[in-house]
């Protein structure tokens, strides 16, 4: 197998890895680094279950080669909590039951994080616009939107 060197920061930790050319970012995370919080659902770039942040922007880790992220910084769902203390978005999802089966949840939370970092006071419409691209086949959308809006309030210190 043809491999190349990859220098990457994941959840604040620096890695120097040797990676196969066709390895997708999501496969690097899940298979090589055992960061299985990031999910694969549709495997066709449509569902956003695999969403992670690259340099602070939400992207689909199933649609990016691991080698394309060389020199960049990745944040996955495992990097959100501070030790045992959950991130306010995670807290809000627990409190508001912002999930049913939970499979889409890591992706949804990462997109919510990107949204709130860019816009701390989104309107309900703005939250819906971002969340609508995520496929949640349990149909938990109303509680997802409520969770994100409440997390925004908490993060603003209200």
């Amino acid at each position, binding site marked *: 197998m043809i491999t190349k060197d990859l220098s990457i920061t994941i959840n604040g930790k620096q890695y120097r890895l040797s990676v196969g050319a066709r390895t997708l970012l999501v496969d690097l995370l899940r298979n090589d680094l055992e960061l299985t919080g990031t999910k694969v659902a549709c495997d066709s770039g449509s569902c*956003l279950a695999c969403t992670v942040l*690259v340099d602070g*922007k939400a992207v689909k880790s199933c649609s990016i080669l691991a080698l394309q992220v060389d020199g960049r910084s990745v944040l996955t769902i495992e990097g959100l909590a501070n030790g045992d203390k959950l991130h306010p978005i995670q807290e809000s999802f627990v409190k508001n039951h912002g999930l049913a089966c939970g499979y889409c949840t890591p992706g949804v939370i990462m997109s919510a994080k990107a949204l709130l970092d860019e816009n701390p006071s989104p309107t309900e419409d703005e939250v819906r616009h971002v969340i609508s691209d995520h496929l949640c086949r349990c149909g938990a959308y109303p509680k997802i939107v409520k969770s994100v809006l409440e997390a925004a309030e908490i993060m603003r210190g209200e």
Partner: protein
Amino acid sequence: MMKNFEYLAPKTVKDALTLLAGDQGDSKVIAGGQSLLLLMGHGLVTPKYLIDIKGISSLNYLQKTQSGLEIGSLTTHRSVETSPLIRNGFCVLAQMEGALASLETRNWGTLGGNVCHADPKGDVCPVLIALGAKVKMISLRGERTMAVEDFSTGYFETALNPDELLAEIQVPNPAPRTGTAYHKFTMIEGDYAIVSTTVSITLDASNEKCKDARIVLGAVAPAPMRAKRAEKVLVGREIKDSLLQEAAQIASEEAEPVSDMHASDEYKRELVKVLVKRVGKEALEKAGMA
């Protein structure tokens, strides 16, 4: 399972062009790869060498010049969507980008990648064609420009030579009294177009008669197409509802849709008829205010 390939990541345009100059027909350029990796994952595209240009920062820019906008091919969809430079006269670009796939795709995918992918259902090219945009292609042999309209030659095919790279998209300033409107008909937000329609109308100095018109249809032919017979109906005349109706009817006859899982060809023709009239009316209103 994706077939293996050799990954090459040139850091400069010159390095990329040198690699392309030596291409034996087995290289493929990847930018954001939001469409390409899907095709590679299904084994539909199997390059021996994958040339990743995403890291070439000199092709990532959006600037306003006297003649219009110059957009580097590696500018992301999201950068176009949110650029303050496109609010004046190019709002339709932001509108199109805002409905292109998901935010996650727009954050990584590039304008040039989308244009080169040449998906007949692609969002970008029809709007660029309506705006009269051009592409600049470069190679070690030199550079050339071409209308986007001529660049998309067919089903996933473009006029790009194997040794060339799409470097820049040039969008001219709209002529005075020009309005451009766009609508993408989809099953769900951000989906591929079932039919997309872009109409650009330029009024004459009296603000009454149509001086120039472009009607561009997406997803109803192997490449984005101008409904040229329908355009001719509008040019030189005062645009009223009945005239738009006539143009819409002709555009629906010019379209070459095929049935698929989303809609029959008859349904798509009907959509063209409805959308050309509706979007044409919106373009006309905008032209009157421009």
